């Protein structure tokens, strides 16, 4: 924890409030920007801590957006965790509420489907960038890269609960395979 002052909380609030609007297609799409700001610009976390935060967020129940809760805690303790989470979730949730009301009132228009189709490739491009940035940190040995590749293969071809894969990875790491 670097700072528990009100200044740190305000910085967290506007950083993640802005970030939430960039999360096209979900939280994973915002990872590159979160990484750039948190690790490179503000030095709130090291690269390794960031990869750990991503891993802990995946390992925990709940939506994956909770990586920002871990970052908030690192910056400003429990208050930071709360502020970061709310800043990341409330603005877009409010937007969703109003757009939903607007669409419910108007007759069904077709522009949302066109815009949605236009955003999908951008969203996948951003998620691929997330994958690259995280892989560069997490996969620093051949064994680590192979575990990542095996997981990708297993998760796309089987219906295994991701939790088992994460725990298996933890055991392999604990056993010193990496």
């Amino acid at each position: 924890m670097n700072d528990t002052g009100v200044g740190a909380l305000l910085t967290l609030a506007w950083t993640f409030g802005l970030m939430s609007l960039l999360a096209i297609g979900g939280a994973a799409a915002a990872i590159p920007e979160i990484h750039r700001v948190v690790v490179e610009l503000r030095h709130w976390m090291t690269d390794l801590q960031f990869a750990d935060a991503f891993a802990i967020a995946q390992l925990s129940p709940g939506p994956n957006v909770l990586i920002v809760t871990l970052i908030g805690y690192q910056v400003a303790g429990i208050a930071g965790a709360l502020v970061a989470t709310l800043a990341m979730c409330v603005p877009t949730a409010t937007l969703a509420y109003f757009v939903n009301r607007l669409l419910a009132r108007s007759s069904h228009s077709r522009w949302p489907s066109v815009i949605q189709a236009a955003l999908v490739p951008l969203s996948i491009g951003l998620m691929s960038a997330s994958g690259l940035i995280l892989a560069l940190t997490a996969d620093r040995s051949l064994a680590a890269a192979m575990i990542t590749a095996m997981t990708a293969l297993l998760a796309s071809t089987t219906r295994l609960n991701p939790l088992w894969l994460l725990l298996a990875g933890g055991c392999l790491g604990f056993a010193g395979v990496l």
Partner: protein
Amino acid sequence: MALDSPPAAVPAAAPPAAAAPQLLELFVAFAKMSLAGFGGVLVWARRSIVEQHRWMTADEFNETFALCHFLPGPNVVNLSVVFGSRFRGIPGAIAAFVGLLGPPVVIVTILAALYARYGEFDALRRALAGVSCVAVGLLFAVIFKMLMPLVRKRDPIALVLLAGVFVAVGLLRQPMPVVLAVAIPVSIGLAFARRRAA
């Protein structure tokens, strides 16, 4: 996904017959699906809302999710608010939102505190390194699943846009606001132009 607008206003669809959920029911249902959701809550949201409680039909759920997916921000969080508000207005939206985020935020905060204290322990470091590799692999699987339909459609414009965003953000590490300020208008403009030409 059907491109033509679905017949949303047709009231003939019989189920869901279930009564609209109360505030507490909303809170509990969203808390449960959130706590069940390791590596993603959407599957459990669908199971709970459509199959278990029958608060929506599968089509209604897909339509609601499409809206939440097209808006920025965490999809499932958006879904909780839209879903809760459809049944119980703003209090319903808040009940679903707090149910979805409250319990996992408590858990993650506890994990964050443990990590801050014991993060340097060698055994924990090794285990987390293993979990990280798997977590990245899971992300790749999600990307792969989303990518395949585009590859199958052989949509060159979509693939070029995808690659452009990946290079700008992933390789060149450009700020996302700048990249998106260019990419979003270009992509939407192209989509409308093609729709008109078709």
